[in-house]
């Protein structure tokens, strides 16, 4: 029928972030799971001693394995856009809290028996993944507001374009200058990267930034001229442009720094996950073969 009042696909109108999603539903589930595991560990008599081989150990191991496999699938969930209802936010929320509960579940499963073997390797990898995940949550919680404030409505392409425009203006403004002064301006044009290598992107520190060097040098020249008479207007114009470029560079570099910090940990989190899955396979196989 035409003219039917079609109800919309249900929507999440609570406007909660992933950490508080569903009134912290997954925190409660994961917390409950952990408490349950601890209580069971304390109460259940495990002979000869707690480890993966007891009934409880099996139970915790199976739970842990299932959790890890499920946690890994968030990478797929993120990229396979289906039409059915789902919420990646809810997934992330569950991922974070259930992932944290693995600290308890995984460790109790091992019965605190760590050593130099493939089993402990799996545990260590798991902990690395978790620790990197915790770092991720920390940056997810802290950086977005700073990223937004720094951006000040400019998009990344606009920031880069602003720097290119200043370069063009510097280039034009440097035409009438003498060779030595023009060479200083060339420092800014030729020896100044916006992003640079990984370390620079992560820290936004560029100690040998050509623009800063050019600015300092030209500032020196202008100061010197000022002491004697009026400074050359062409030079003050250059100084003004260099200062503007400095500000533009600082903004773009901060932007890149934060974007990098928001992403970098995934380059640990994901490969470690793959390593973990491999180690887990080895762990499970070896247990069944040598048992």
């Amino acid at each position: 029928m035409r003219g039917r009042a079609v109800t919309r696909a249900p929507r999440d109108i609570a406007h909660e972030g992933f950490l508080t999603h569903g009134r912290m539903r997954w925190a409660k589930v994961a917390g409950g799971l952990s408490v349950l595991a601890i209580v069971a560990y304390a109460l259940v008599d495990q002979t000869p001693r707690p480890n993966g081989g007891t009934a409880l150990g099996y139970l915790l191991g199976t739970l842990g394995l299932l959790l890890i496999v499920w946690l890994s699938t968030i990478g797929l969930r993120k990229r396979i856009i289906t039409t059915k209802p789902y919420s990646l936010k809810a997934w992330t929320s569950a991922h974070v809290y259930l992932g944290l509960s693995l600290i308890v579940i995984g460790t109790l499963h091992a019965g605190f028996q760590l050593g130099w073997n493939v089993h402990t390797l799996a545990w260590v990898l798991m902990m690395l993944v978790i620790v990197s995940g915790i770092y991720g949550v920390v940056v997810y919680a802290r950086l977005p507001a700073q990223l937004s404030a720094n951006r000040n409505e400019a998009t990344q392409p606009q920031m880069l374009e602003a720097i290119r425009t200043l370069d063009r203006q510097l280039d034009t403004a440097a035409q009438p200058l003498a060779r030595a002064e023009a060479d200083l301006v060339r420092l800014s044009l030729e020896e100044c990267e916006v992003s640079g290598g990984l370390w620079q992107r992560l820290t936004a520190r560029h100690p040998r930034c050509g623009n800063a060097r050019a600015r300092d040098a030209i500032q020196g020249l202008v100061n010197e001229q000022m002491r004697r008479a009026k400074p050359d207007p062409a030079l003050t114009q250059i100084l003004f442009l260099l200062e503007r470029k400095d500000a533009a560079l600082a903004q773009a570099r901060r932007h890149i720094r934060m974007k990098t910090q928001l992403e970098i940990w995934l380059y640990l989190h994901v490969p470690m996950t793959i390593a973990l899955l491999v180690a887990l396979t080895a762990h499970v196989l070896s247990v069944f073969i040598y048992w």
Partner: protein
Amino acid sequence: MSDCYRIAIIGSGPAGLSAAARAAALGLSHVLLEKTDHLSDTIYKYQKGKHVMATPSQLVLRSDLAFDAGKRETVLGLWDNQTADHKVNVRRHAEIKSIVGTGDPIPGSIMKTVTRKRDGTSEIKEMQRLAPPYKLTLADGSEVMAETVVLAIGTQGNPNLMGCPGGNLPHVQYQLDDPAMYNDEHIFVIGGGDAGIENALGLAGDAAQGNVVTLVNRGGEFSTAKDANVKALMAARDAGRISIMLGTTTRSIEPGWIVLETADGEVRARCDRIIARMGSAPPRGFVEACGVEFASNDRLAFPKLSAVFESTAPGIFVIGALAGYPLIKHCMNQGHDVVEFINGNTSLKPADEPILEAKFAGLPGGRSVADWLELLRSNVGILNGMSPLQMREFMLDSQARAYRAGDVIFERNAPGSSLFGIAEGQVLVEVNPNDPSITVGLGKGEIFGEVGLISGRKRGATIRAGTDCILVEISRTAALKLMSAVPSASREVTRVTTERSLLQIFKSGLTPADLKDAVAAAKVETMKAGQALIKEGEEGDDIFIIRSGSMVVEKAIGGKPVFLSYVPAGSYVGEMAVIDGGRRTATVRAAVKSDVIRIPGEAFRPLLAAKPGLTARLREEMSSRTQLNSYIESKKDSFEGVVDMYTGVANFLVDNGVGEATDVLLIDETLCIGCDNCEKACADSHDGLSRLDREAGRTYAHLHVPTSCRHCEHPHCMADCPPNAIHRGPTGEVYIDDTCIGCGNCQRNCPYGVIRMDKVPPKRPWLISWMLFGQGPGPGEPGLKWKKKHADPEAPKKAIKCDMCSGQSGGPACVRACPTGAAIRVNPEQFLSVALLDRKGG
């Protein structure tokens, strides 16, 4: 008069060309007069390589010229050849300036034209029409005589010209085809609309061209241009690529120089080229001066025409876009038909006959198309004033439907902006949502559905067929055309909306009879965005119903305006003064351009006196509003910063078009990690093209309005869509269907820049093969390079916009795919409420 043509055809667009070709084929003496040096200027001006579409596909082409979908160049080349083959008598560089009859005065045939002046007064001129033959005067002063004239000049009109001395010098131009053609010039662009700004940016875009570009604007700001354009312009100015002169007019032009009048006096500047983009005057003035009357003073109105396209000036025929048919196929068919009519062919059936036959095919009664049209025209009140030709055009955009007694026509809360007319039978309106058995009947000739049409909001009540009935469903476009073509229809729709909004809003057992005086005294007023309807502290007790648009209510607390609430269309304001007397307690201003119904206090008070139920109802609403106000005031005392923030956010959202939105994507930038998964999800769920630009757009207090569709109540994009391809879907989404011809009108009309013209990229390899082997471009919209390499260069570009993921049971993919919950979709009524205050506070 030896040199009198049988037919003079003015304008060589598809309509005029086809008419001339038919005249040539029939061997009639004819001349085709074209203003420019080429045929079909509108199509000539399309972007290079544009794919011209041949819609509607069901319509058969009836013309001596061929036409099929294809590249602009192919279409124009074909027409050039065929025009020559048919030995059409074309005269280029022949702009017609006036058409006057040379025969005797036609008794009683007087043309009245109303010109509105800037100060709001209007002037009426009367002109006695003279009988044919007509004398056509060309721009170069030469004359052409013709017995009949076919006007096919389209709707482009003429660009407004530079009126100052030197305005006719050769370096003054009105169009910019290719900005890359000019190097090392001092160029002045005159006009701060979108066209001027885009041209200026184009000329200054590449610094290597070495142009010195100045944009001159008469006003102090760029009020008519799109936000995105203004921003880009300001960025270009800050980057030193463009100079801007505001509050400046041109005094005179000399070779190599321009003299400008600025706020600080006269300035003479070097100038090699002037590009004047000061808008264009619609052709209406010229057409009226020929004695052709328009249906109304509305901007949308078209000339009054008979069934054979003859205007009110005997012997002058109007066809094509100027007659209201904006598609090429229609234009060509009309060209053919009009010449047949002039040549005395009376048995010709219009080419759209099969389409109309199909429309009426399912209906009982077995009438012919003409009979159906006549039945609808005479039975439905608002259609009475239409001519048979108008009825045909009207039906192309409308539907006739038969319903059985009991069938539901539409449900409460269904989206819908069409208007229904009852041709036969009766319908029942369920006035009480809780009890479907309470109904009000509407009978033959009446209309319903007007609320959706006028306010753009959801249906207010369920309506079902009371008896077997035949209804005509008038699409929003057809209804707007109808209202501009038939003033009596427009008045009737206004009266009905006023009466029914009063009934619906106030309920309280009111009947139409009770409202008679109030309705008669009510006036519809249009408010500009930002204009105050009610000012705090003023006297006045008129009550207002918001017919379309929306309002914001503010109150000065501690010297600062504080946002109190958002009032959508379909609500009322101003009730406090009429109940309690006293001055206005708050300011109400239009969030967007809005229509309100003003009911004078003295007309409303008797109603209040007679209906205690109404007073009680108003009091109830008033007390809840007062409560809200005092809640906010109390907060203001203790949490001043929070309330200021709330006001700031609310005003920011209203300024960014949320006031006319039905559903808008917002990004909470305290949560957004910039992963762009929203854009990727958008692209992946829509043929690989994202309809959303997350990073672009305005931000206030970490709340970001990205560039994405707001699904406006009255979508600007719908305003001028030749194939009528933009609709509102069943869940309220505004979407574009496959009949899009890629003309770009919607993109230009959207003030928020959310529509893009693009071709659908080809299918890419499976996600798995990307994950495992790195094949293909991965999730999200493929990069330009990949698209270039794999895309079909012949594929047409079409308009692309958000469809709110309609048809996907999960709802909007952008929201689903956000890992942190930063992306939210809201409607303004829910979002601009105290909840926002508490949110910002908490």
